[in-house]
């Protein structure tokens, strides 16, 4: 049967199906994907015009007709202006930085106006937030769309409703776009008091380090009497609880953060949160560390990229189930 093909080319298909699939590359707002309907103010305006027309007829006001028809003409022409203000824009996705679950992802969209007239007041509504933007003629304008990241894993940019009511607010033109852009959401670092991670088996003699002042071995909650010099100021600056750096008597520079070291009763997400916390702390203190997850191992390192790689591994661990959870 050809039904499938017919359906695929019909407007219904576009209306129902296409918006649900992310589009790659630059999205062109062709005429057929821009919808336009009167707003409530538009209907009120029409009602006002009808009243003015009835008044003009009743009182035989020729100039009343002129005024009413002038306003009607402006209303009609404003449809074209509203439509034009949105149609033929080019939308493409820009960069997006990873964030922790619970934070706000800032997706960037590039709106390109290849026309000689500016686009005024284009609203981008997505996941409950709206952003207003102006695109000057023949320019690309970058808009940031904040989206609350609920859980770790990939976050696809939800459907964005682009709408405009310019110039008279009597009509609303809108279009749905769903550029294919994803952000990585790291697990939210937990904020429980930290138990010390077990130190790597591979660095044998660093086991069971006593407390000393030579080498950093980890963090614990601040206790009164701790020397201010040992407070982990970087962590404090990030708004975390007051922590005291614990120094081992002997070098403990390399640490492995292992999934299996955490008690299974914590559950997957709590374990990942704990691991994320460790990664952040270790990186903040310039340690060499690695992460071990079931099936994934990020080797030792200490650079920013390494931190990203570790957090990404945590974010994507069993990501499908995370999304389902």
């Amino acid at each position, binding site marked *: 049967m050809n039904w499938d093909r017919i359906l695929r080319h019909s407007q219904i298909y576009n209306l129902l199906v296409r918006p649900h699939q992310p589009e790659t590359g630059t999205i062109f707002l062709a005429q057929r994907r821009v919808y336009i309907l009167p707003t409530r103010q538009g209907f009120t305006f029409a009602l006002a015009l009808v009243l003015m027309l009835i008044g003009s007829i009743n009182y035989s006001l020729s100039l009343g007709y002129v*005024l009413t028809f002038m*306003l*009607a*003409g402006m209303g009609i022409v404003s449809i074209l*202006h509203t439509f034009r203000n949105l149609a033929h824009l080019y939308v493409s996705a820009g960069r997006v930085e990873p964030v922790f679950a619970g934070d706000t992802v800032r997706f960037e969209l590039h709106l390109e106006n290849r026309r000689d007239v500016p686009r005024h007041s284009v609203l981008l509504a997505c996941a409950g937030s709206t952003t207003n933007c102006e695109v000057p003629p023949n320019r*690309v304008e970058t808009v940031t769309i904040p989206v609350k990241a609920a859980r770790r894993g990939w976050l696809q940019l939800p459907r964005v409703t682009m709408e405009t009511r310019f110039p*008279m607010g009597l009509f609303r033109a809108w279009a749905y776009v769903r550029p294919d852009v994803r952000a990585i959401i790291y697990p939210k670092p937990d904020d429980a008091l930290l138990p010390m991670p077990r130190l790597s088996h591979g660095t044998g003699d660093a086991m069971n380090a006593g407390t000393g002042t030579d080498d950093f071995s980890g963090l614990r909650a601040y206790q009164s009497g701790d020397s201010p010099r040992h407070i982990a100021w970087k962590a404090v600056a990030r708004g975390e609880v007051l922590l005291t750096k614990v120094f081992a008597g002997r070098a403990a520079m390399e640490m492995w953060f292992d999934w299996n070291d955490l008690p299974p009763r914590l559950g997957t997400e709590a374990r990942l949160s704990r691991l994320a916390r460790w990664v952040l702390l270790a990186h903040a203190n310039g340690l060499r560390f690695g992460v071990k997850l079931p099936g994934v191992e990020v080797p030792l390192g200490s650079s920013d990229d390494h931190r990203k790689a570790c957090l990404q591994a945590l974010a994507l661990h069993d990501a499908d189930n995370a999304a389902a959870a």
Partner: protein
Amino acid sequence: MTPTTLPPLNLAVLLAGLALAALPHVLHLPLWASATAAILFLWRLAISWKGLPLPSKFVTVTATIAAIAGDILTYRTIFGRDAGVTLLVLLLALKLMELRSQREIYVVTFLSYFLALTNFFYSQTIPTAVLMLFTVYVVTAGLIGFNAPTCRPVENLRTAGALFLQAGPVMLLLFFLFPRVDGPFWGMPQDAFAGVTGLSDTMSPGSISRLSQSDAIAFRVKFDDKPPPRPRLYWRGPVFWEFDGVTWRPGGLPLLQRGVKFESLDAPVDYEITLEPHNRRWMFALDLPGRLPPRTRISIDYVLLSVRPIRTRMRYQLRSYPSYRATAGADPEDIRLALSYPRGFNPRAQRLAREWRRTLGNDEAILLQAIDFLRTGRYGYTLQPPLLGANSVDEFLFDTKEGFCEHFSSGFVFLMRAAGVPARIVTGYQGGEMNPVDGYMVVRQADAHAWAEVWLGNRGWVRVDPTAVAIPLRVNAGIAAAAPQSAPLLMRTRLNWLRTLRDNWDALGNKWNQWVLGYNPDRQREMMSWFGVRSPSWQSLAMALFWSVGSVIGIVALWLFARYRTADPTQRVWLAFCRKLGRAGVVRSKSEGPLAFGARAAARLPERADAVHAIAGLYVELRYGKDADKGSVARLRSLVRAFHP
């Protein structure tokens, strides 16, 4: 209360538009209302400028109640034209005081449009029309400002201008093609015609001289051929039969007859009259009208009557017979009415008339005697006649000897009746002035006149103009010549340049009246017939409207969207580059960014890699970089032109 968050500059534009809509109303609003509205306007401006708090709900509600109370105290009602407009202005000004959100802007905007419309209740002149269209433009610019918060007011004015110009053709089509209906659907406000000037349905000393101060136009006439000479231009209006010593009244003879009953003795005159609304039923016609226009009647004394009071400018075709023998209205009871007069007043005139009857006997001889009496009586013509007492006819005829046409005609008819000759008073207009600019004859209120008709048996009702007898200049040269000092300024004949100016202005006004203000179902039919549509139904009009407006919108749309095709130069050059590569087999996919495409093309065409990278890099810089200049575009163009894959 919270301070407003509405942008002050946009609000200022909107308020300016609102003020323009309200400004002409100051002429007829009570002073307290104008002052209140002005204060509220300025207060609202100060609030948005200085970030002051809005008044509390209690204050606005109290003020609203006070405004309604004030309106009722002034007008005794809140309905009717003046009371309604006053209330609208006040409520709009009060609405400003609680204007907080974007949504309420629309209420104010739409009410401003409506307020602009109400100005046409008072004046439909060209200046008013221009002012109100300008008002709509400014208000719309204000509205646009609230939909484009980051734009400067200049840009909004430009956007509004574009909308306005593009809406113009739509307006014209709607205006001319929208199926016209004759109003009204319901009653007019009772005070809608309060200021209308014109003849009244009674005549007492002073009632016509009062009109003579006004150069307002009563009606315009377009003759099919040469107009008759001035002394024959008697435009017939209401006829009066009953006299109580002071005031003349119609005789209570509303006998309407379908046909016209008189003998014509000469060739007819064909013409068209455009009558200004005067809120009465009578229509003016040259003595005596033959064929009746549709929806009119004619009274037994040859007064043309409309079925309804004339409240809109009205056009009608007429054929008149300047020479006639009028025999209607001569039944015994009519004649009895035409002979009655109050016996208790004016003994001297009664004595003189009885003397004539005794010495002369014959009606025609008495008439000639009366004419001679007036001609030789050295009467003066003045717009400011001396005040007269109870015996007004006696005092005028024998003592003051100064008066206006109502004095002459009243005195004459009284003499005739006292002498036993049936007579009646006819009011209307005498004369008229040709406008050389458009060939229309203009008859003004100042041309209002009163004359007499005398029943002479077999000659029928014969017109006698006592004023013309006493003051021949009045009829031969017009009122401006007969009473030069008191005629309206613009009617004085000596100021030639002023006349030319007035003629042109009148001709423009006439065009305006004929085609804009007087555009009614008849005119619409006439215009459609030019396009070959004989009797357009509302369906055919609707179709014509639909297709023509559709085409106009289509043209506007083409114009608006055509500018899209002229993509910017950078884009054009880049597309040319993509086409060149496409011909070489490297086709850019839709989703491919310029840099990725450049890299792929460079890999495919290694020997051109440098050029490709340079072009792609420059393009990206031009397109997305912050500081692109004209020189770089030229460089990109030359690079692409030199590029041959």
